[in-house]
C-alpha cells in the first residue's frame, strides 16, 4: 500500500501546499522549523483537518485506489475510518484510563470485546517492554514509557500508515538516545508506511531513510539525508539539515568509527557507548598539504564532488570519515580543487558535538 497526498490547506494567513508520496519500505522524516506546517500535514493525513485543495489517496499493491480526501468530488473519510495510527506530540494518553486500557482503546472503539481487546493490548505492551505496567496511570509513567504506551496504542489497531509527531521532543537529553534507539527498532518492525515529524536532524539521521524539508508551507527539498547534506538546495536547508553526522563508539570524548577512524570532541561527560558526532560543514577547514596546527582532528581525504549551487561551495569528501565541507568560492579558487584531488580536512575538537545513540 502506498500513499499519495497533494495537501492544500489554508489556516488564516498561512497557506500549506505540498505533494508527498509514502511507500511501505521507507521511513520518511518531515523536517522543518516550528510553524512550517509539519503538524498540519499530519492532521490532514489523519483526517483531523479537511483539505481545502488537493487529494489524498492510498493504493493497494494490486492497484486499487481509495480516496481519503478530495474536496473536488466532496469525498472525505473521517479519521476513525482511516487506516492510520498516530503518536502525538506529548503523547496525549488518556489519564482516566490505565496503560492497558489506553492501548485497548482503539480495539474497544472498533467493537472488539473486552477480553480480546485486553489480551491484544497486553501483547502490545509486552512488545514495547511494558508488560508489567498494565495497571499504571499514564501520569505515573516516565517520558520514555509514556512514549512506548503511545506507540503501542497507535499500533494496536493494525494501521497501514503510522504518523509520529515529534516523538522525542518531550524527553530530556539523558533518555533521548535510548528511546530513539528503541523507536528505531519498533519502526523497523512495522511493515506499513511511516512518517515522522521532527525538527532535529539527529532524529532524522537515526530514524529515517528519506527526509522531506518543509519551509513556510512548501517542500523545499527531499531525498536521503546524506544527499541533502551534500547538495542543499537553499541556505535554509543547509542550515537546518546540512550537517555531518558520524556513527561510532564514544569513549572519553573520542568517537571511533566502524573502520577505525577517530573523531575527537570535547564532550567527555557522556558514558561510553554508541553515539553520533555532529560536525557543521562550515567548521571544516581544507588544506592542500598536511597542516601543522592546533586542530585535534586531521584527516586525509579525496574530493568526491563539488556542489556550486549556493553562494558557498560544498565539497564532498571521501576519507576515513565521510564529510561535507563548506568553503567560500574564493577559497575554492585558491585551493584549485577538482574532483579526485587529495586534500587535508581539519576540525577543532570544540566544533564536534556528540549525542549518545
Amino acid at each position, binding site marked *: 500500500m502506498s500513499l499519495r497526498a497533494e495537501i492544500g490547506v489554508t489556516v488564516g494567513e498561512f497557506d500549506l501546499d505540498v505533494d508527498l508520496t509514502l511507500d511501505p519500505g521507507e521511513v520518511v522524516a518531515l523536517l522543518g522549523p516550528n510553524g512550517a506546517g509539519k503538524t498540519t500535514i499530519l492532521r490532514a493525513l489523519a483526517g483531523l483537518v479537511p483539505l481545502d485543495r488537493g487529494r489524498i489517496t492510498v493504493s493497494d499493491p494490486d492497484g486499487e485506489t481509495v480516496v481519503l480526501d478530495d474536496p473536488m468530488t466532496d469525498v472525505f473519510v473521517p479519521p*476513525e475510518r482511516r487506516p492510520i495510527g*498516530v503518536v*502525538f506530540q506529548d503523547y496525549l494518553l488518556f489519564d482516566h484510563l490505565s496503560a492497558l486500557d489506553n492501548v485497548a482503546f482503539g480495539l474497544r472503539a472498533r467493537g472488539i470485546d473486552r477480553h480480546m481487546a485486553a489480551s491484544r493490548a497486553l501483547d502490545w505492551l509486552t512488545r514495547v517492554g511494558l508488560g508489567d505496567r498494565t495497571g499504571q496511570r499514564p501520569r505515573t509513567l516516565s517520558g520514555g514509557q509514556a512514549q512506548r504506551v503511545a506507540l503501542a496504542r497507535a499500533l494496536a489497531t493494525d494501521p497501514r500508515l503510522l504518523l509520529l509527531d515529534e516523538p522525542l521532543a518531550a524527553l530530556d537529553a539523558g533518555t533521548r538516545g535510548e528511546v530513539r534507539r528503541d523507536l528505531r527498532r519498533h519502526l523497523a518492525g512495522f511493515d506499513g508506511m511511516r512518517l515522522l515529524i521532527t525538527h532535529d536532524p539527529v532524529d532524522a539521521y537515526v530514524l529515517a531513510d528519506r527526509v522531506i524539508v518543509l519551509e513556510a508551507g512548501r517542500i523545499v527539498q527531499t531525498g536521503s539525508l546524506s544527499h541533502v547534506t551534500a547538495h542543499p538546495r537553499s541556505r535554509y536547508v543547509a542550515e537546518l539539515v546540512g550537517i555531518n553526522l558520524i556513527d561510532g563508539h564514544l569513549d572519553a570524548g573520542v568517537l571511533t568509527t566502524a573502520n577505525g577512524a577517530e573523531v575527537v570532541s570535547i564532550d567527555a561527560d557522556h558514558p561510553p557507548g554508541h553515539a553520533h558526532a555532529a560536525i557543521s560543514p562550515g567548521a571544516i577547514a581544507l588544506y592542500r598539504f598536511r597542516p601543522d596546527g592546533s586542530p585535534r582532528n586531521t584527516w586525509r581525504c579525496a574530493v568526491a564532488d563539488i556542489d556550486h549551487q549556493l553562494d558557498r561551495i560544498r565539497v564532498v569528501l571521501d576519507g576515513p570519515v565521510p564529510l561535507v565541507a563548506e568553503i567560500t568560492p574564493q577559497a575554492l579558487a585558491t585551493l584549485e580543487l577538482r574532483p579526485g584531488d587529495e586534500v587535508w580536512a581539519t576540525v577543532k575538537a570544540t566544533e564536534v558535538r556528540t549525542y549518545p545513540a
Partner: protein
Amino acid sequence: MTASARPTPVTTGRRAGRDRLPLPALVLAVLAVAFFAAPFLGLLWRAPWGSTWSVITSEVVQRALWLSVRTSLISMVLSVVFGVPLAWMLARIDFPGRSLVRALTMLSMVLPPVVGGVALFFSFGRRGLFGQYLDQWFGITLPFTTSAVVIAQTFVAMPFLVLTVEAALRQLDRRFEDAARTLGASRWYVFRRVTLPSIRPALIAGAVLAWARALGEFGATITFAGNFPGTTQTMPLATYLALETNPDEALIISLVLIAVSFSVLIGLRERWLGGGTGPGAG
C-alpha cells in the same frame, strides 16, 4: 554584601507570611463569614427543640419532604439529560445567535423566580400559548400538578449545570478527542469515553448545584404549580405556609432544609467543586 544589606531574621510567627491577608481584608472576610453564619444562629436559637421530632414526623412535613426529594432529583436528571447537550452545543458549535441562545439559557438565573413562574403559566397554562394545545390535543393540563413542580424547578436549575459544564468543555484540551478519533472512535464513542470522563468533576458539581437550586425553588413553583399538599407543596412552600399558621413548624422545616443542603455542600468540598479538568490535568 555589606552588613547593612543583610536581611534581618524574622520571628517564626511571620514565617507563613505569603499566606497572610492584609488586616483590613481579613476583617472584611471575617465579617462576611459572620454575615452568613448569623441567620443560622438565629434559627438555632429560636428553634423549639422539644417539638422537633413530632413536627418532622408530621404528615404535612413528611409529604412535603418526600415531594421535594422526588421532584428535585427528577429536575436534576432532566437538567443533565438536556443541559449537557446544550452546554456542548454552546461550547463547541459556532452558530449565528449563539450569544443570544446563551443569554436566553441563563435568563432564569437572574430573573426573579416569580416572573419565571408567571411566564411558565402563560406558556404552559391551560389557556397558555402552548398549554391550550396540550389540553385540546392530548388532554394534558400542567398547572397545579407535580409535573408543573418539576418543570418550574428544572427551569431555574438547569442554567447552573449548563454554565458549569460549558466552562469545563471550553477548558478541555481537544487534542485528546482528536487522538481518540484517530484510534477509530466515532464522535459518540469519543463523547462517552473521553469527553465525559474528562469533565466528570464539573458535571458532578453542576448536577449538585442544579439539584440544590431545584430543592430550594419557591417563586416559580408557587406561581405555576400552586400550593397543594402532597402534589405541589414542596418543603420551601410548606415553610412559607407554616410561617403564617405555626412559626415553630416553619423553623423546624427550615432547619431540615438547611441540614440537607449543608451536608451535601460539605460532602462536595474542593474535591469536585474545585477539581481539575482535562485528562492531562493533575
